[in-house]
Every structure is written in C-alpha cells, then in structure tokens.
C-alpha cells in the first residue's frame, strides 16, 4: 500500500475505482466471481442484488476487510490493494456500515474523535470540520448530543459525517436505507447528490429498486456473486434491473387442475387488521397492514426482501408482538396468543429460517414431528416413543422424505428433506385452518419445490387459507390465486394470477413506482 490521499485526484476521464475480475471464495462457496465494474468520479453507483448475492463481500473487498483472492483493483488509475480498513481510509475510501459503529453513551463529538491519532483529541479542528461539512453537504449534526438520544436517521448522519471527516473520494454505503423512514431516505438521497456535486463518488448497496431510480446514475446487478448486468440508469429500465436481480427461472407449471374458485361469502379464515410494527430503534417495519384470506384461497406476498414480509410472518406466528392492530383466525382474536394457542386454533407456520425456528437439528425426525403435540403421545406419564416412530414413518412415506429411519437426527437430512419434515408436521396440525409459509421453497431443488407447492395447493383444496411469501414471482404466480406486494412496510395492489399480465403487474408494484 503506497497510495496516499494526495495521489487520488478526481479525473473525469478515467474511472475512480476499477475492479477487474475480482473474486473471493469462502469455504466451498464462491461469494464473488470475476466481478468487473468501474465507478466514475462524481457519480452514484448502485450495487443491486438479493440477499446473498455478494454485495457486502464486494463492498468489504473495496474497504479492505476482505481480501479478494483473484483479480485486481485500481483506484484513480493506481494499483489498489488494501489489506485493512486503514489502508482504504488512507487511500481515500470510506465506508458506512449497515450496522452503526457508534457508542450510544458518548456524545457525537466524542464518537467522531474516536480512533483519531494523537494524545489530545483535536476538538477545535473538529468543530471547523463539522462547519465545513454542514456548509458543503447540508449535513448538520449536534456535536454535544448523546448518540443514544438520536433518531436512526440522525445516527446515520453522524456515521456519514464520520466518514467525510477523512475527506474520502469514494464513500461506500452498505444498505443505508434499511433502517430509515421515507423522509430520512429522501434526506440521504439529497446528501448523495451533494457529495456527487462536490466531485466525490458514492457506492450505494441496496436491494430496493425504488431508491436506485431516484439516487443512482449507474447500477450494477449482482446475482450469485457475478455481475449479471447493469449500466447507466438512463439506458436501462428499472424492470430490466428487477429481472436481472431475480433471475429468469424456468416458468413453473400453473396448477394442473384449475383451482376451485373461492366463495366470497365463506368469510375470511385469516384476518389481519391495521397491523403496525415499530422496531426498537423507532423505525417503522410495518404500517397499517390489512389482509384477509378466505378458506381455500392461496394468497402470495411478493416483494424485494426487507419490505416488511418477515415482520408480518413473525407477527402471524407469534414471535413478534405488533405495536397495534389485530390478527384473527375464524373471527377469534389471536393477536396476543402464544404459539401453542395459535397451533390450537389451526395455524400452521413454515418459518423462513428453517434452522433457527423450524426444527431442532439434534433431535430425531420423530421428535421434531411430535414436538408441538407431545401431550398426545403420553402413556402412563411416559412418552409413547413407538407411536411417535410409527407416525413419523407414515409422514416419511407420505412426503417421500429420504431418511434412514425416523430416529435419524433431522440435521442429517438434506435441506429439501428437512423442509418436507417441517411441512409434514405443520400440515398435520389438528383442525388446520391457516397455513403461513415463509419462503417455503428457498434453497430447494426443482423437484422439492414442486412437491412443496403441490402440498400447499392440497391444503387449500381442503379448505385452509394459505399465505405464501416468496421472492420468486414465477413461483407465486404458479401457486397463488392472488398476489399482493410488500413495499416499505405496506401491502399494495392485489393482482389476480390468472391475468396474463400478472408477472409484469407484480414487477411494477415491486419497484414501488405506484406506491
């Protein structure tokens, strides 16, 4: 590392940052592969991609926390190979992390002075620097305020100011809007514009397309660690970016048998009214969400991740108490009910995070299946293990689970087979009325995907109300009767999947254009 800030002179002809064939492997996974992109001086460059696409690894490679194992980078024309964040900072690259690194009990000024060299903190210089930053970028922070008292938006401003104090040429923002409310997002976009006007470049990492449209000059789309496309926003339409981001999978077959039309007067099996969730830091995860699903109906929630789907599922499963609103099944209020009471009311949940919530890896298949209804297996005070095993063997046969025996630990199965065990357990809930399936097909191979979707259809045909969230639009169109779109904590639209333009309609709603 020999580059110093002095060498980084903005040059409008060459790229500020050029990455050429950068790759990185973690264990057996190629997190980044042959990534080539260039960030022009004085521009906002968005890196788009789903969770796990490699956005953060890319960002960390630029900031020096991850050292790429192939490829090279050039910063303002000079070779750039940061070994750690100090190298990056010296070279004029600063980063604002997704999770803030401020100490809440200290004042803003103390936080800004942390990590500075020297014996005495240069307080006077700090105040002139702050004045300069406020002047040129409209970023004002109250230096005397305690960080813990600030709103999320204000804390993020402090983080950005902290980055700017180093006078960087390139600023990396990792998912900066994930925790912000709409007005704070507007302010952030304005800040980006001010930085760009000053000749600096901003790399904005996000999976929210709506913001890209407003903030970026250029975008690069990552999928599974590789660049799948991108370009100037003026040339590439948002819908094309969305397609690139989600990938074009083989269209799934629509339900083989036409699904029974749902009877409007059967009434809603699942009703969600005015649900709002405020995170502990004050930001809004869900705002006034309403949804009603009739028995026998399958409703899908589409949307780019992070728009409130996960929180809604948590509210339904009982893991997250909503700030306001009600959840009811067949008219019975379950808003504050325990998971056991919900199961008793006929709610089956296929959790998004199978490993953390759906199963206990060390316990056997039989134990995992019997866990919610252990009371049914009690005989003379002891567990009737023989019966647990027989029931599990039945489920193994019925769901075609590949397992050596019902006593095998569920953790020894492949992901698809684990999901089938979860499905078998949940769909055998006594008095099944509502099925909530969060990303039920994620990480499964095509055969298992088809199986899971068939089972959900069968549950609906038997009269259950089914709610599915997925980031795969094709899958939702194949299985659902109608699709709503999650966007910034609200549910918008209601697209009937038998409409020929369903996929396009959902795609447009996902960009937030109509919101």
């Amino acid at each position, binding site marked *: 590392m020999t580059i110093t800030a002095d060498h980084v002179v903005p040059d409008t002809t060459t790229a500020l940052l050029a990455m050429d064939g950068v790759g990185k492997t*973690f264990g057996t*996974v190629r997190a980044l592969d042959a990534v080539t992109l260039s960030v022009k001086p004085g521009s906002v460059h968005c890196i788009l991609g789903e*969770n796990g696409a490699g956005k*953060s690894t890319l960002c960390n490679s630029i900031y020096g926390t991850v050292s790429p194992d192939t490829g090279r980078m050039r910063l303002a024309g000079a070779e750039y190979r940061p070994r750690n964040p100090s190298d990056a900072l010296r070279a004029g690259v600063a980063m604002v992390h997704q999770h803030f690194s401020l100490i809440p009990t200290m004042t803003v000024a103390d936080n800004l002075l942390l990590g500075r060299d020297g014996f005495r903190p240069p307080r006077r210089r700090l105040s002139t620097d702050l004045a300069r930053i406020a002047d040129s970028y409209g970023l004002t922070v109250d230096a005397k305020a305690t960080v813990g008292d600030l709103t999320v938006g204000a804390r993020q401003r402090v983080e950005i100011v902290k980055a700017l104090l180093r006078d960087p040429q390139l600023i990396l923002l990792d998912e900066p809007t994930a925790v912000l409310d709409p007005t704070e997002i507007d302010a952030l976009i304005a800040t980006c514009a001010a930085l760009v006007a000053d000749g600096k470049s901003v790399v904005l990492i996000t999976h929210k397309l709506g913001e890209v449209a407003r903030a970026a000059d250029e975008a690069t789309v990552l999928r599974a660690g590789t660049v799948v496309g991108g370009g100037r926003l003026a040339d590439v339409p948002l819908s094309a970016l969305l397609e690139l981001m989600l990938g074009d999978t083989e269209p799934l077959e629509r339900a083989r048998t036409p699904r029974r039309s749902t009877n409007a007067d059967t009434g809603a099996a699942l009703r969600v009214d005015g649900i709002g969730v405020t995170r502990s830091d004050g930001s809004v995860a869900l705002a006034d969400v309403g949804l009603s699903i009739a028995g026998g109906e399958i409703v899908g929630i589409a949307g780019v991740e992070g728009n409130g789907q996960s929180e809604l599922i948590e509210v339904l*499963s009982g893991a997250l108490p909503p700030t306001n609103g009600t959840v009811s099944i067949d008219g019975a209020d379950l808003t504050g009910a325990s998971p056991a009471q919900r199961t008793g009311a006929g709610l089956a949940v296929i959790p998004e995070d199978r490993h953390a919530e759906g199963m*206990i890896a060390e316990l056997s298949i039989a134990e995992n299946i019997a*866990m919610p209804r*252990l009371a049914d297996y*009690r005989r003379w005070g002891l567990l009737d293990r023989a019966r647990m095993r027989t029931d599990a063997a039945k489920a193994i046969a019925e769901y075609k689970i590949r397992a050596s025996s019902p006593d*095998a630990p569920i953790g020894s199965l492949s992901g698809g087979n684990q999901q089938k065990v979860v499905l078998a357990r949940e769909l055998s809930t006594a008095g099944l009325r509502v099925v909530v399936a969060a990303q039920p097909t994620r990480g499964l191979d095509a055969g298992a995907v088809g199986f899971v979707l068939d089972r959900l259809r069968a549950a609906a045909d038997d009269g259950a109300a089914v709610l599915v969230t997925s980031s795969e639009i094709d899958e939702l169109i194949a299985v659902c009767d109608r699709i709503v779109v999650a966007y910034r904590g609200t549910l918008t639209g209601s697209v009937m999947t038998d409409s020929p333009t369903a996929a396009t309609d959902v795609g447009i709603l996902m960009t937030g254009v109509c919101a």
Partner: protein
Amino acid sequence: MTGLKPQIRHPLTVAIGALIAAAIVGLGLAATAGAGPVEVIDALVEGTLGSRFAIGTSLNTAAVLMLVAAGFTVAYRAGLVNVGGEGQLCLGGIAATAVGVSLPAGLPSPLALTAILIAATVAGAAWASIAAWLRVHRGTSEIITTLLLNFIGLALVVLMVQEPSLLRQPMTSSETLPQSEALPAAAHLPLLGLHKNPATIAIVLAVILVAAIGIMLRHTAAGLRLRAVGLSGSASARLGVPVDRTAFVGLTAAGGFSGLAGGLLVTTAPFILADGFSSGFGFSGLVVGLLARGSMTAVAAVSLLFGFLVSGGINLQLAAGVPASTITVVQSVLIIFIAGAAWWTTTKPKRPQSLSAGTQLADDHTKEVSA
C-alpha cells in the same frame, strides 16, 4: 476407521481419558511432596476401601455428590449451567437444621425426616429460583448469578451458626462452639445397617432419584422439552414449548436437588450445622456433572469415584504425608481436561449421514456470506 470415531467421541471415553491424565498429574504432584506412586496408591486404597468406616463415609459423600450432579444435569439439559450447587446446598442445610431443631418432641422419625428433607429441597429450589428468575426475566447469565449466590449462601451459614438468636446452640460457656444444636434422634438418617459401617440410606435415596431423573430425561415429554429448549430456544418457542417456564423449572429443580443434598448432610453424623459443613461438595458435584456430560449412569459412577477419592485424600495426608488438597488439584485438572475435550465431543462431523452433505454445507456458507 469411521466405525471407531463415534466411540472416541463418546462421553465415557473422554471422561476416562481425562481421568487418566489427571491421575498422572496427581501422582506427579505427590512425587514433589516426596511420595512415590506406589505409596500414594496404597494410601488411597487404604483410605477408601481399607476399612468399613472408610467405605461408609465414601458412600455418604457419593450420595451428596450424586444429587448435586443430577440437578446440574437437569438444568444443563435446558441449556443452563448451575454453578450454584454450594449455595443451594447451604440453604438446604440451614432449612433442614431450622426444621430439625424445632420439631415437636416425640414425632416419629419418618415424619420428621420427611419434613426436614422437604424443607431442605424447597430452600435449595428457592435459592436457585432467584437466579432462574433473573435469567428468564432479565437475561442475566445464570453462571454469574448462581456463582455469586454461593458466597451469600456460605455467609448465611456463618451468620446462622454465630448468632444465638438464630441457630447457634445455647451458649453455656465462652468455649461454646459456633455451631447449631445437634438434631434430635428422630431427625437422624437411618444407617444401612451394615456392620461398623456409617453408610446411611442417603445413597439409596440418591440412586433412586438419579434413576428417576434418568427416566424423566429420556422417556417423558418434560425431558424432551428440556432438551429442546437447551438445543434451540427459538425453534422450541415456535413449536409451542413454554421456553421461559421450562428453563425456570429446570434451574429451580437443580437447586432443589442441591438443597436436598444439604439436608442429607445435616441429618448425617455429627447432625449439626457448622461453618464448612459441606466441604465444598457443591463444587465437587458440579465437577461430577461436568464429567458425566449428561449421562445419569455416568453421574452415579463418577459420584462414587469422587466419593472414594475424597475419603482417600484424607488418608493420603495421614499415611503418605501428601497434602489432601492434592485431590482438589486433581479435580481441578479434571475440569480443565474435560473443558478442553468439549470440542471433541460437541463438534460432531457435520451431518454425517447427509445424502447431499456438500450442497447442504454450501447452503450454510451462503447464509454466512450474505449480509
């Protein structure tokens, strides 16, 4: 090769390996005190199996250790580490003494003992429930709280036996020792009735309880729920297990067993409560629990071994001139070896029977990489 691996990782193999290593360290220490290995082993055997008295004392000690370790194992199933055996044992001893000395005269022995032991159990459970409550409602680490409650428990014993208005025996002269009144005959644990052998029914009671807990953990819904909570709180909650209540009950039960052990101690000769009445059995019981690694058979076996080791240690000092604290060092070395071996038993090869282990691992990595 693959067939051998599970056995190497078996808790029993690890325990035996650690024992051998600790024995070597112990013999080395004894050598520095001038005693050769043969001499040391002779003294140990003499002190443990050499006389009926020695065997009886060892069995009584083993009973106490068994109960503490059994409680530790119950809490450990729920993912909680109970370091507070000593404090809970002290509270059990205090409650047993308080009930024992205030029993109406002429109460039949079975009734008296039942009352005393129930009081001891309840007191130990109540002491542990403080830590359990803090854990469940405040998220305070139970390792810290149970550990610190030990010192309060130990100090309470001192307070009880120093203060005449509490449990100190009536002061007749300035030489009256700071200890409680002796418990009446009705409150004495019956001996097993072996000739010249001080072994009480405590060992029978402990073995029965250990067997009952073994069955509870393996074959009941409660046992499975405890395990589920210990393995994954979030999944257990989703699957309708009352996570907080299960954890609370698990740790409180551990306290109950330690409390009962304290009750057994004061109802065994010399039938008094005094400072140091427990000789650190709460901590030794913790070691037994750690060594047994969840197996109740191992709890019984290791308790017996430790019971004999403690008696042997006393003779070691008398006969071979090796400090009895060498045994404590050996115990501590055991803990270190067991902790060091923990990765060996817990880091099982990932998903050994997986049909698609490669892709599964890949999935996991993707998750770690994604931000």
